[in-house]
C-alpha cells in the first residue's frame, strides 16, 4: 500500500522553490509533506499533496518537470526510539531506506508519519505488518 509522491526538478537558485509553491497554491493544492534534496546546481522537491491528479496537471501546465514515485508512509509511534525500532527491523530484513522525510504528525493518534523511499517496498511492508506498524493511506494523508 504505497502512496504516490510527486518529485519536481528545480534549479538551485533563489526563487525556484517559491515559484513551485506559488504554482501549487494558485492551483488550490495543499502540501501534506515536503522535502528538498539539493546538489550544487539542481534540486529535487519531493511532495505529498492532497490532490495528486490535480497537482500533476497544474505542474505540467506550468512546465515543471515532475515524476510520480511510489513511497510508503509509515505511522511511527511518537515516542523515543520509535523510528529506531522500525529501522532496526528494516536493517534485519535488508531493506534500504534511500531517503526519508516526515509528514505532519498526528496528535490524535500520538504518531509521527514518516515518508520513506525504500529499495524493496514489498519487504518493507511485510516487515511493518509483522511489527504491527501501520501504513498510512494516501486519502488519510490528504485529509490530515
Amino acid at each position, binding site marked *: 500500500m504505497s502512496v504516490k*509522491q510527486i*518529485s519536481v*526538478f*528545480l*534549479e538551485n537558485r533563489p526563487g*525556484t522553490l517559491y515559484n513551485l509553491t506559488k504554482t501549487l497554491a494558485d492551483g488550490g493544492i495543499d502540501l501534506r509533506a515536503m522535502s528538498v*534534496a539539493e*546538489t550544487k*546546481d*539542481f534540486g*529535487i522537491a*519531493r511532495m505529498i499533496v492532497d490532490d495528486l491528479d490535480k497537482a500533476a496537471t497544474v505542474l505540467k501546465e506550468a*512546465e*515543471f*518537470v*515532475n*515524476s510520480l*514515485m511510489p513511497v510508503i508512509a509509515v505511522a511511527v509511534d511518537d515516542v523515543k526510539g520509535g523510528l529506531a525500532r522500525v529501522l532496526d527491523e528494516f536493517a534485519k530484513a535488508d531493506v534500504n531506506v*534511500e531517503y526519508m522525510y516526515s509528514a505532519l504528525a498526528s496528535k490524535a493518534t500520538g504518531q509521527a508519519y514518516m515518508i520513506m*523511499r525504500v529499495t524493496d517496498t514489498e519487504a518493507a511492508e511485510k516487515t511493518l505488518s509483522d511489527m504491527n506498524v501501520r501504513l498510512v493511506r494516501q486519502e488519510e494523508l490528504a485529509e490530515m
Partner: protein
Amino acid sequence: MAEHYYQPEIETMPREQMKELQDEKLRVQVQHVWDNVPYYRKKMEEKGVSPEDIHGQEDLKKLPFLSKADLREAYPYGLMGKPLKDCVRIQSTSGTTGKRVVAFYTQHDLDLWEDCCARAICAAGGTDEDVCQVSYGYGLFTGGPGLNGGSHKVGSLTIPTSSGNTERQIMFIQDLSATILCCTPSYAAYLGETMAEMGLKPEDIPLKAGIFGAEAWSEEMRRDIENTLGIKAYDIYGLTELSGPGVAFECSEQNGMHINEDHFIAEIIDPETEEVLPEGSEGELVFTAIDKEAFPMMRYRTRDICSLSRKPCSCGRTHVRMAKPKGRSDDMLIIRGVNVFPSQIETVLLNNGYPANYQIIVDRVRNTDTLDVQVEMTPEMFTDNIGEIEERQKTLVEGLKSMLGLKAKVSLVAPKTIARSEGKAVRVIDKRKI
C-alpha cells in the same frame, strides 16, 4: 634600438618588387596545383579557369575558394601537392576526427614556416644571444614545433618546455634566464599571476619579450601581461592549413601584424557575396599560399574577420598588416586555444539521449576560458534519483571531453529557460570581453 630583421631584404622589400615576386610565385603555384591536385583542378575546371588565365594577383579572384568543408571532403590526402615520399612531417589541428585538419609538409615547407617564425622572434627583439622558452604545446599542435624551429633559425638557446607544469616553467625561466616566452596569451597571464603570487616582481623576472597567439586576446590583457611579467608582448597569427603560427606577426609598433607576403597573399572578401573588398575594408580574410609544396592552399577562407592596411610602418617592414581578427564568419569558438563548433556539442547531447536543446556559455574567469553547457531537463530524462541524474551529467562531461578535448561544465536547467529569440534558441553566449 635599431630594428632587427631575420631576412631584411625580403621583409623590407619595396612593394613593387614584392608584387612581382608574388605574381611570379603565384603563376608557378597555380600550375603546380593544376598539375598535382586533382581536387582543386576540378574546382578550377568547374569555374572555367586554367593556369593561363592567372597572370598575377589581380587574377586571383578568378580562382575558386577552398574552405574547411573542402578539407573535410578531401581528408586526408586529397589536397596534397606532393607525393607522400617527399613529405617529412604532418601537423594537425585540435578538434575531432570530422573537423580535424591534417597538414603535410616537405622540408621546403618546414623551412619557410620556421623562417616565418624566426622573423616573428626577431621582430620581438630576439637574437642568438637570447634564451627562448617555448611553452606552446609540442606534438600535433603547430604552436610548439613552429616557434621551436623559428628559435633555432634565429640561433636562440631554445628551451622546449611545451605546455603545462607551471612550476617547472617558472624554474626554467628563473634558472636559465629565459628572455623570450612563447605561449598562448592566457597561459602567459597565468604564469604572470603565479609568479606574482610567489612574490616575484617584474624586475626579478629575466623575460623581456613574449610572443603570444593561437587565441584571441585584448589590448587590456596585453597590458596586464606586460605589467606582471615586465615584458613587451607581441601577437602572432597563423593556422595549421597555412603552416602554423607565423603567417603574420607583430613588430615593435604593436599595431597590426605583418603578413609574410612572400609566402602568403591575403585578400579580404565579403563572407556572404564572396566578393573581394577594397583595401581597408573589414571582411573575411582569405589566404593563398604561393610557395608551399605539400599542402598548397589556394584562396583558403580563414573565417576570421579583419581588415588589411598598407600604411607605412615605422619598423621598416613593407609587408601588409592585418588587424587583430574581430570575430569569425562561422560559429566556431576558440576556447582555451581549442576549436569548438556548437554542432560538436549537439552531437554529444544527441548521442547521450538528450534533446538538442542547449546553450553554450563561454566566459573568461581569471584569464582562463570557461565552457558551460546548459541542457534543459525533460520529463523523459527526469528521475527522482539524484545519483542517477548526476551519473548522466558525468557521462555527458566525459563525452564532451572526448569530443572536444576540453573540460566543460554541464548544468541542468528547467524546461523552457533557454532564451529563444523569434522562436530560435540562442545557442552560444560568449561573455568573454576580448
